[in-house]
């Protein structure tokens, strides 16, 4: 046996694979980032050189194998566009001012990706060289992307999806943390290692490996059709047959996500409790504390960094999941947000919009529309930033705790 397995040739291979994996992650991350930023930018004006015809300036709407669709202008709120067969196209380049002017009477259209409302389309030259104006249009585009109301056709701003995702993850956290930490505490402090607890740990480990869509199915069968149906019969009989809780909604979706992240939280918090030095427990008991006083006074505070780690991992896992949500409440378009300014402020039964679902929707249903794919990238970026913000808060809190607790410990 090699006494230093981390030094052997095998580990060099593993190390290499890890580096490759990391590089892959970075590559994907960067491309999402770049794609996202590009997706938010206004469409650049292009000049297409054509065989046997004068050049055209316009916005590239769609590129297909056989043809290009070029948006060339706007007439009284109506879009003018041309389909150009591939064999006609000589080259695509930055437009010359003369061409742009001749083509659209001094003004050409730039569509902000998220408002299709013709009155609000902005007419501008995005490539006219004045970077400040370009920045302004980029800002308009960003503002529309973030704040424009969602639309039933899947277009529109992402604010509703952002709110939906945020509320969902928050609710999931509230559900999973107390329960998961309690189970972790039980396993670490009370359960010992009997055959039953070994079995329990094994089951928990296996639960983490179940594909997430299966959780979604369980949620649909058990929560939506089972519990939801029962709740409707007891409390919302007046509204039947239209379902209140017996259809997908925020509550069921967050419950499914809580179930999904439970094994993770249990395992990580159990490890956290186990790492608390035994001396602390004994010191507390020797001062006359009872077991529960020791748990609340010493164990939980000492395990806080680990609990925050569990929180971070749970958030990251939960915000990455789309598949189970498709079954239990995420929708393409929700007329109302799941939160409101009037009581009850939180509407647990409402279906909601979700960034991940929006990415999926934009990337698949728009038929290869380049604009939609770029918007999907922008949505993915927004999702990443949301996760980063949520995790950033937790990581910051943990760093502070670590600094206070562990920096100078012996």
């Amino acid at each position: 046996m090699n006494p230093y397995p981390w030094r052997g040739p095998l580990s060099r291979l593993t190390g290499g694979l890890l580096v490759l994996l990391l590089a892959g992650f970075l590559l994907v991350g960067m491309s999402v980032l770049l794609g996202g930023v590009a997706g938010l930018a206004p469409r650049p004006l292009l000049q297409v050189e054509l065989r046997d015809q004068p050049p055209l300036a316009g916005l590239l709407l769609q590129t297909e194998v056989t043809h290009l669709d070029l948006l060339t202008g706007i007439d009284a709120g109506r879009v003018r566009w041309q389909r150009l067969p591939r064999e006609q196209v000589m080259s695509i380049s930055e437009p010359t001012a003369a061409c742009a002017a001749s083509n659209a009477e001094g003004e050409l259209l730039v569509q902000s990706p998220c408002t299709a409302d013709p009155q609000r389309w902005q007419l501008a030259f995005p490539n006219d060289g004045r970077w400040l104006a370009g920045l302004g249009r980029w800002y308009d585009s960003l503002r529309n992307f973030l704040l424009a109301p969602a639309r039933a056709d899947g277009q529109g701003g992402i604010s509703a999806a952002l709110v939906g995702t945020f509320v969902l993850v928050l609710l999931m956290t509230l559900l999973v943390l107390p329960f998961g930490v309690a189970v972790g505490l039980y396993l670490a402090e009370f359960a010992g290692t009997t055959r039953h607890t070994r079995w329990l740990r094994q089951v928990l480990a296996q639960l983490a490996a179940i594909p997430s869509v299966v959780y979604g199915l369980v949620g649909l069968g058990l929560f939506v059709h089972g519990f939801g149906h029962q709740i409707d019969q007891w409390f919302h009989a007046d509204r039947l047959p239209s379902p209140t809780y017996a259809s997908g909604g925020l509550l069921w979706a967050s419950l499914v996500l809580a179930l999904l992240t439970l094994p993770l939280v249990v395992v990580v918090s159990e490890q956290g409790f186990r790492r608390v030095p035994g001396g602390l427990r004994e010191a507390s008991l020797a001062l006359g504390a009872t077991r529960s006083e020791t748990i609340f006074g010493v164990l939980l505070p000492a395990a806080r960094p680990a609990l925050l780690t569990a929180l971070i991992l749970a958030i990251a896992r939960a915000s990455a999941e789309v598949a189970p949500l498709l079954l239990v409440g995420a929708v393409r378009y929700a007329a109302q947000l799941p939160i409101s300014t009037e009581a009850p402020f939180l509407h647990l039964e409402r279906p909601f919009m979700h960034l991940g679902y929006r990415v999926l929707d934009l990337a698949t249903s728009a038929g290869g529309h380049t604009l939609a794919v770029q918007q999907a990238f922008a949505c993915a970026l927004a999702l990443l930033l949301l996760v980063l913000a949520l995790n950033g808060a937790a990581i910051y809190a943990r760093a502070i705790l670590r600094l206070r607790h562990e920096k100078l410990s012996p």
Partner: protein
Amino acid sequence: MSEGEAAPTAQPAALQTVDLGLQIGRRRVLQGIDIAFPSNSVTALIGPSGCGKTSFLRCLNRLTELWPGAQVTGQVLLQGMDVDSSRLPLPELRRRIGMVFQRPNPFPGSVFDNVAYGVRLHRRCQRQALEEIVEAALHSVGLWEEVRDRLDEEALALSLGQQQRLVLARALAVEPEVLLLDEPASSLDPISTLRIETLIAELKSRYTIVLVTHNVQQAARVADYTAFLYDGRLLEWDESVQLFTNPRLQETEDYITGRYG
């Protein structure tokens, strides 16, 4: 009873054991220990590693109950009252018998919260009263001047020696009668060790102190009485002067002169 053992004192005992034995699983850790700790004195327990000193100490405040399979026989009497009796609930017993461990083990949290931890468990008191108790406890371990401006700092930021005195202050804050010190200086440097020893000498006017140590010189320096434990039995127990200058048993002499252990 072994031949070298004799009750060296007629002083009233704050804490005493009667035929105390401890068994963990099938292993007999302690047996037949009869010893009394006179009030306001320091008794040192010496003996080679693994002879059961720490286990004995843990029997006194019932910390052995944390060990799975541990079984205590015989009696431990605190002011004549059996520590197992229902008239002495466990939290109250452990308040009256304070303990300091081998390694400093401050809780995560501030210096103030560490000292206040035990007090908050046992009584409700106003912030003002609590501050006074904490200050008094820190004074009595000579830590007040060093940490008075750092009460809100993390306890782990203190040096090891300070941490050990902080832990001692934490034990003192709940006003115990007996202090069990389990090799309190073994992880400290010589200067911190000296401070702890000085402290022990100061504190014995107010507390009954049981000191476990495998440092024979330390026992000779600070203890009024010394007991020699060997292989789970109490071999010799006498006034320190007597035991160190004129031990009755060959084993004791071998140990204190460093021939084994």
